[in-house]
């Protein structure tokens, strides 16, 4: 496993598309090995524990990573951020297509899901809610009208009656401010 991890770091930093015909097979297998599990855990949070849906999202995400392999010559941390971003987008698109909010939570299988720590979860929720309240009204509003309500920039722009470019810029400064506060409080790194 450690060897795979090391090879992966090298692989993602220096991809040469032409020198290895078996590269594709290996790459997608290694993507699964390295990121499949952690990504599934993240995605399940946003599919309301719908495992089947979450697995489809993970598959689609890793497939997109594989298709973009030549472009993704990034270090591991950034690749992880990219995978999270893409998977969220796929969940949101899927939710739109289904026209529903996340389904009711199904009972998770005992051996695949870690028992959530209710205390930690509540505490984080309190800290984040408090940090949001501390932002300027403009900043809080764009976070609420986009991410927290599953709306895209242009949808939020229409509701708020401001140009999409303004939503994007406000969102940018809002996230910087939010991250600063959460860092100060030891919740974000």
């Amino acid at each position: 496993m450690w060897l795979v991890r090391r090879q992966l770091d090298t692989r993602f930093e220096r991809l040469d598309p032409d020198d290895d015909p078996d590269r594709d097979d290996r790459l997608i297998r290694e993507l699964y090995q390295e990121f499949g599990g952690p990504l599934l855990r993240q995605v399940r949070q946003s599919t309301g524990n719908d495992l089947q849906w979450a697995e489809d999202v993970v598959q689609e995400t890793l497939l997109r990573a594989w298709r973009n392999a030549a472009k993704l010559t990034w270090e591991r941390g950034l690749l992880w951020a990219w995978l999270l971003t893409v998977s969220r987008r796929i969940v949101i698109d899927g939710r739109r297509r289904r026209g529903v909010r996340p389904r009711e939570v199904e009972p998770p299988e005992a051996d695949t899901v870690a028992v959530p720590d209710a205390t930690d979860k509540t505490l984080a929720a309190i800290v984040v809610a408090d940090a949001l309240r501390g932002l300027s009204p403009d900043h809080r509003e764009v976070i609420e009208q986009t991410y927290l309500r599953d709306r895209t920039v242009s949808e939020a722009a229409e509701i708020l009656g401001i140009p999409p470019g303004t939503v994007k810029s406000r969102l940018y400064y809002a996230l910087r401010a939010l991250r600063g506060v959460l860092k100060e409080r030891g919740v974000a790194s």
Partner: protein
Amino acid sequence: MLSDEIPESSHHDVAAYALGVLDPEDIQGFELHLVSCERCRIELNEFGELPGLLNEVKSASQRVRP
């Protein structure tokens, strides 16, 4: 394109991208920008944990919603 020709606002898409709320028609353009913009790559990384943290609030508010 030289990076100093890029207007400041084009770096702002990184926030919407990190949250997965950038409109589909803007995504490819931003990803192209990302390849050549180190600043946005760093910021995407920095914003990486915010969606997870915001989910705490999101699921909390969904719980109390009727």
